[in-house]
C-alpha cells in the first residue's frame, strides 16, 4: 500500500522559493501566474491492507516527523 503525503507551508507563512519561481515564470512570459507555493511530496510504502489503519498511522507520522505543524500543513492520500 502506498501513502502520498503533500506537505505545504501554511498560508500566511512567507515562501521565498515560491516567490522566486513566480518571478521567473513571469519573466518567461506567463503573465497569468498570480502566485506560486512550493511544498514537498512524500511517498510512503506500507505493509498491511487496511487503508483506514494506514491513514491513521501516516497521520501520526506526519505529526511526529514528516511535517512541522508550526509552519506546515499536510494532506494524505492512501492508494488501495
Amino acid at each position, binding site marked *: 500500500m502506498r501513502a502520498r503525503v503533500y506537505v505545504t*507551508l501554511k498560508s500566511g*507563512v*512567507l515562501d*521565498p*522559493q515560491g516567490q*522566486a519561481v513566480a518571478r521567473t515564470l513571469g519573466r518567461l512570459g506567463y503573465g497569468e501566474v498570480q502566485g506560486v507555493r512550493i511544498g514537498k511530496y512524500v511517498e510512503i510504502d506500507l505493509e498491511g491492507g487496511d487503508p483506514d489503519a494506514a491513514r491513521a498511522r501516516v497521520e501520526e507520522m506526519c505529526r511526529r*516527523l*514528516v511535517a*512541522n505543524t*508550526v*509552519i506546515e500543513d499536510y494532506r494524505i492520500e492512501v492508494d488501495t
Partner: protein
Amino acid sequence: MSVVFGVVRFPGSNCDDDAVRVVDQVLRPAGASGRIIWHKERALGGVDVVLVPGGFTYGDYLRAGALAAQSPVMDAVVEFARAGGPVIGICNGFQILCEAGLLDGALARNASLHFECRDVHLVVEGRPTPFTHAIPAGRAIRMSIAHAQGRYVHPDVDRLEGEGRVVFRYATADGAVIEAANPNGSQRNIAGVCNAEGNVLGLMPHPERACEDLLGEGGEDGLMLFECALAWKAGVPARVGGKR
C-alpha cells in the same frame, strides 16, 4: 570543581569542536570544562550544561534539525531540560531544539533565499536565562551567523514577547532594532528565544565563534554567554561584558 559542558555531536555537526575549545581551553582558567556527547548515548553522564552545536546534521534532510531531534540522546536532553538543567542550542542546535519541542516556533528558509554568512549585532532582552542574565540590557553584541534556514516563525509572537521569551534580536551596531538589521526575515528581528521556564535557550548566531580576542573588535562578545552560565552554576551575582 569545574562546570562541565556537554556538547552533543550528531552526524553532520560542525561547530562541536569550536564549542569544546571555548569551554575546555579558553574558559578552563575560569572553571569550565567540556566534553563531547555522541548522539547515540542515552545518558548525559552528569554534565552541568548541555550545548547543542551548529552544523548540518543529517544534511538538513527533510527540514533542518528534524532528524537529529529524533536521536537517542535527545530523550536524555529533554529529561535534563525538564528538570531545569541549562540547555543552549546554537544555529542548527536551535533548529534541533525547536524540532524536539523544547523551544516554540520554527526556523524557515531565509527570506533572501541566500545562505547568510556574516557578522551581525544582537541586543539582549526578555527574562533572565542562565546564558544571558548578567549581560547589560541594551548592550549590542557582535557575532557571526552562517545559515540558510534561520527565519524565526512563531504562530503567536505577541504571547511569546509578553512572556519575556524573546531573548535576542538582530540590531545595528548601536543596538537599534530595525528591519535593515534583520538578516533573514525573522519575525520582529528575533534571533533567539527561551522556553517558558527560561532554562532552555536557542539562537541562530554563533557565540562559540566569538570567544578570543584574536578575532578583533567584538571578537570576544560570545564569551559573555558562557561566563553567564558559569556564574549561574556558581550561584554568584555577576556582570559580564564590561570591557567596552
